[in-house]
């Protein structure tokens, strides 16, 4: 397989506007062609769009509107991890030699239909994601003594990190007391424990090694990929204090990249809800099971930004089809030293974790400078 590099990225402000999806995608693509000196539309031979918007022929429409006539163009949809799924598809096209340069763009609106998986009848009448989140929370509290205070620190930390992210939806900080006092959606999920559905778009160019040299002196290599789907139904995840698909995906990504958790300098993980960050840190090996809350508290107390430096989904917002790509954009910026106030010093290796539908499916990427 050929090596595959990320050579350019683009991202929009995450917000809520009347702007149509096509225009949001183009807004994320424009900076790529503005900033990459030698890249022209004619160079791009794959265009992949990532969205939950149920839009027909979207990749072809975006190609035409971008002045690109690709060999391959199609959409990728996988609810909340659509973005990294589309990047993995782009990786496959380039690493196989079927294409040299792929443009991946993801976007969603705040009211996109991917927020609830109506097919999943195992959820009964409890279709909204707050209910699966509440079950994870109950199980983690019961098994490991996690408290509402522990959960609040995830939200406080990620909202704080988002203040230095110009693309983030939230532009204000929330105190510990703010989170503790925010509206109870269930007995253990508060409003500020939740990621905010919003509008947003993000894009990435991936290239073969020989092409990457033409466009940048600082390519970021995709060295590890792990993906696992255990089901579409939430209730198939047997241990509710853990995420089966994440454990499988991260093991594959570490194996492929020849890296371990100790090599990771900076991480974007899928904090759809506060409890998700705690469970994912444990399941990806950053700490022992049951120690995720303490790990988060230590990050907060020491102002350590290695986990979710852009504010995660809780601080930055969650435009589903853009989320995984925005996570990769952040790690790209961190590894190229372009993360400005959010910069994690001397970051050389990063991890992206993106999951769907209560972690029935997970994608993990390892990126290296």
């Amino acid at each position, binding site marked *: 397989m050929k090596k595959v590099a990320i050579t350019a990225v683009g991202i929009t402000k995450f917000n809520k506007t009347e702007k149509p999806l096509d225009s949001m995608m183009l807004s994320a693509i424009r900076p790529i062609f503005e900033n990459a000196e030698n890249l022209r539309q004619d160079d791009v031979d794959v265009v992949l769009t990532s969205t939950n918007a149920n839009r027909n022929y979207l990749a072809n429409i975006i190609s035409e509107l971008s002045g690109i006539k690709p060999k391959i163009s199609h959409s990728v949809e996988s609810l909340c991890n659509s973005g990294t799924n589309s990047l993995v598809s782009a990786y496959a096209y380039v690493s196989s030699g079927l294409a040299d340069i792929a443009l991946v763009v993801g976007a969603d609106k705040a009211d996109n239909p991917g927020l609830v998986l109506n097919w*999943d009848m195992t959820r009964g009448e*409890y279709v909204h994601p707050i209910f699966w989140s509440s*079950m994870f929370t109950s199980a983690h509290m019961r098994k490991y003594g996690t408290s509402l205070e522990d959960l609040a620190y995830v939200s406080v930390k990620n909202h704080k990190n988002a203040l230095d992210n110009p693309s983030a939806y939230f532009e204000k900080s929330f105190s510990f007391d703010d989170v503790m006092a925010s509206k109870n959606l*269930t007995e253990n999920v508060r409003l500020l424990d939740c990621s905010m559905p919003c509008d947003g778009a993000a894009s990435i160019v991936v290239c073969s090694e020989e092409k990457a040299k033409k466009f940048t002196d600082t390519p970021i290599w995709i060295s590890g990929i792990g993906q696992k789907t255990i089901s579409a*139904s939430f209730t198939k995840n047997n241990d509710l204090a853990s995420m089966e698909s994440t454990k499988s995906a991260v093991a594959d990504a570490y194996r492929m990249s020849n890296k371990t958790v100790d090599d990771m300098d900076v991480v974007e993980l899928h904090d759809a809800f506060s409890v998700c960050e705690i469970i994912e840190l444990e399941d990806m090996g950053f700490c022992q099971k049951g120690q995720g809350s303490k790990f988060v508290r230590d990050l907060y107390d020491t102002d350590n930004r290695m986990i979710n430096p852009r504010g995660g989904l809780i601080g930055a917002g969650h435009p589903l089809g853009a989320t995984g790509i925005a996570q990769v954009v952040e790690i790209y910026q961190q590894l190229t030293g372009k993360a400005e106030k959010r910069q994690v010093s001397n970051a050389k290796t990063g991890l992206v974790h993106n999951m769907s539908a209560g972690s029935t499916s997970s994608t993990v990427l390892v990126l290296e400078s």
Partner: protein
Amino acid sequence: MTKFEDELKNNNFVCSNCTKCQHLVWPPSDFCNKCFGDVVWTPISKNAKLVEVSSKDGKNFCIAEFEENIRVFGTLSGSSRPNPGQNLTLEHCSYDGTPKFVFKIE
């Protein structure tokens, strides 16, 4: 309206059962997800075990497991708070756009 939804509306919880390998296919499907065998509808026992519980606005909701394979979200009647592993009984089921299950504690 599927047979599954129709039966729920009549307070019957049924699931597809493989005629070849006898696997209970959940969520219901036209084919077995173990062997692609044909399936027939079969009633599910009303006995379940509590997997996990939480509450919203004072109303308990839970995940319950039937037949060691079939897990669903549902509502717990009454105000008692059971523990995981405790026995439940399916008190009522219906369908109104989504399946609805109501359990009582044994």
